[in-house]
């Protein structure tokens, strides 16, 4: 089984979004497409699958073994779905049906499920057990951690026996351990003679998968070759830039001030613990945060980082222990950045309208907003748009602006870049640290990315997940 894509062009109103001459997907060898968001890599996957949005036009040919398919024709690959070709969706938690038990969702995809339900359910149970989810067949998706949901999605995608697997950003939102497990899973698919096309901006995942790497930028492929070669000795300047954006390779920025020894204590937590539904998420955490501090809260997903953040911000009451805030933190001097900035703005009003309320309420010095907009390289027209009409990176920078307008003493950033690609992450973190430095404000960075924590923060508090069997809660 092998797949060949030739002369693939995807356009939107005449503008090319994908223009790739030829991509071969040999069996047993991973092919990974990397690049930043907007480079067209996801569209390429959807063009191959035949799931492009109707307003896009596609041209080109797809060869699956000896059969040729015209990419322009959308429905002609439908009969292949599940049996020959399968798509592993991004953010599996959203792709799974929230009202359906896991085992049933997987079983549905089994060949012949309509006539032989029992056999399908048995295959699903076997498959889930093989993926280490033996006891979870009757669980609903929202009780699973991100990594477990990804494994369920993998089971659902492959139960039909599809040899060609297309994975679209499969590691988005996964922590290191879950990502390693995912890479092992994908490699196993290859070892069984399968074809794998992975779309990702996660270079670590690309490294782990090996095989061939294609670097995409502005609709085209700028560099391709074996993974080790492209990712260790990149030839194209764009690839070099992409690699330099990995947090582990950031050049250290000089910091004014340095680590604060005598700065006043802003937040002190004393033996706090919190749990949900009788299950402890974390227990007995003590820490102090001083002005100008740069603290990282790390740990795998499900270890309670966000919950601890809520307790530290006093948005949640701890089950045990106490959290004290310095009086200076009152009146909005403690701010928070959210993992998904789109849900942190009122969804149906232009961003500028919300900011105007803020200016009206707190009356910062005139021109402060314009200065911040300039410093973040954001244009005024963005303020006229709604949160859903602005890209993730820009919106997170707008969230930083919104927080900085109040001159906070402490900024709590909850996975602020985990949904952004590497280049955008670097830019956003750069803006964030610049502002925090200039204002002499403390920063608590919640992240599952140890490399990012080390690149940004002076000290790190690591949460270990509570004993196994606990469904992840964020």
């Amino acid at each position, binding site marked *: 089984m092998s797949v060949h894509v030739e002369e693939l062009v995807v356009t939107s109103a005449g503008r090319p979004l994908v223009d790739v001459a030829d991509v071969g997907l040999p069996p047993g060898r991973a092919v990974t497409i990397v690049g930043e968001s907007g480079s067209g890599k996801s569209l390429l996957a959807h063009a191959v699958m035949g799931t492009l949005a109707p307003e896009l036009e596609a041209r080109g040919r797809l060869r699956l073994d000896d059969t040729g398919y015209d990419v322009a024709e959308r429905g002609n690959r439908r009969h292949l779905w599940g049996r020959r070709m399968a798509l592993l969706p991004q953010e599996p938690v959203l792709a799974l049906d929230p009202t359906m038990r896991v085992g049933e969702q997987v079983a549905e995809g089994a060949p012949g499920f309509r006539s032989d339900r029992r056999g399908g359910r048995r295959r699903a149970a076997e498959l889930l057990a093989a993926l280490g989810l033996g006891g979870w067949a009757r669980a609903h998706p929202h009780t699973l951690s991100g990594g477990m949901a990804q494994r369920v999605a993998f089971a659902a995608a492959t139960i039909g026996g599809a040899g060609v697997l297309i994975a679209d950003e499969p590691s988005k939102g996964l922590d290191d351990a879950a990502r390693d497990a995912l890479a092992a899973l994908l490699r196993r698919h290859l070892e069984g003679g399968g074809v794998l096309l992975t779309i990702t901006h996660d270079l670590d995942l690309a490294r782990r998968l090996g095989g061939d790497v294609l670097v995409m930028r502005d609709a085209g492929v700028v560099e391709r070759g074996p993974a080790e070669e492209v990712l260790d000795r990149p030839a194209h300047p764009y690839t070099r830039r992409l690699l330099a954006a990995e947090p582990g390779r950031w050049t250290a920025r000089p910091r004014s001030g340095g680590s604060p020894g005598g700065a006043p204590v802003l937040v002190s937590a004393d033996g706090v613990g919190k749990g949900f539904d009788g299950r402890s998420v974390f227990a007995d955490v003590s820490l102090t945060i001083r002005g100008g501090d740069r603290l990282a809260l790390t740990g795998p997903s499900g270890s309670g980082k966000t919950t601890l953040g809520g307790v530290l911000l006093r948005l949640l009451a701890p089950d045990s222990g106490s959290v004290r805030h310095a009086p200076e933190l009152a009146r909005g001097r403690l701010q*928070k950045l959210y993992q998904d900035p789109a849900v942190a*703005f*009122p969804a149906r009003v232009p961003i500028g309208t919300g900011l105007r309320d*803020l200016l009206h309420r707190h009356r910062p010095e005139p021109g402060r907003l314009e200065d911040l907009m300039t410093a973040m390289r954001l244009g005024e027209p963005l303020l006229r748009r709604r949160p859903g009409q602005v890209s993730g990176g820009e919106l997170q920078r707008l969230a930083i602006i919104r927080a900085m307008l109040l001159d906070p003493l402490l900024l709590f950033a909850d996975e602020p870049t985990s949904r952004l690609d590497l280049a955008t992450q670097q830019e956003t973190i750069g803006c964030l640290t610049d502002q925090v430095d200039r204002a002499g404000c403390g920063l608590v960075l919640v992240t599952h990315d140890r490399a990012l924590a080390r690149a940004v923060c002076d000290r790190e508090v690591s949460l270990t997940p509570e004993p196994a069997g606990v469904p992840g809660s964020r």
Partner: protein
Amino acid sequence: MSSALAASPPLPRMAVGRLSGTQRCAAAVLVLLVLFAVAGPWVWPDPVAQDLSRFLQPPGLAEPLGRDHLGRSVVSRLAHATRLSLLMALACVATAALVGTLAGVLAAWRGGVVDTVLHGLSEAFVALPALLVVLVASAIADGGLWPLYAGLALAQWVEYFRVVRARSAVLLGGPAVEAAGLLGLGPVHVLRRHLWPDLAPLLTTMATFGLGTSVLALSTLGFVSVGVAPPTPELGQMVTEAFPFYDEAPWMSLAPVLVLVAVLLGLLGLRGREGGS
């Protein structure tokens, strides 16, 4: 204060050019109905003047819909009845929407006892059929308009309450409102920027349906003779009165039915996409 924000963005409004064909037709029907309800009683002022010598007079130039079994002008009665129906429906829907929305936001915001009490109350109203509430109210009312209005509004506030409460609870518990709290923005901001923009399209759709339901409920009551007391003209009551004469004077029964159909089709046709724009 800042040039970046001075130029307020034009809010997307429903422009006539963006209405679909169906919506334009529906709007035209409703405009005609409203015109008839406003100008009709002025042109044909007296709906109760009897002239038994003109018993069941057929339609003519002076009386476009003829005269009924008591020699009263049918067009005058129809115009007055239409005005009554539309005004009552508007008043009932406005009251129900206002009360339901306020109670819903209050319940979602305060939670605790307030929520328990209001939710329990709405539960009790859901358990009763809406028309039963209105029937009881109008039985007590004995033909008066005010109890009828109160009964209709009482039967309708529950749906607004329940929708608004559910949606507000989601919004108020969400990160956007949490962020607004951290930013020190008060309840006015939360209401104006978070809740209202999200609830308004929902309420518009519900109110459109509510108007139709109210007009229909009022005429149903008139039809079974527990609504507005004669001789005040009312659409349902007019249909009942005309029944014995449908053979000799079909226009008498057809006219109020036609108005009812036009009101309902107009309101249903106006319904656009919810939550769009």
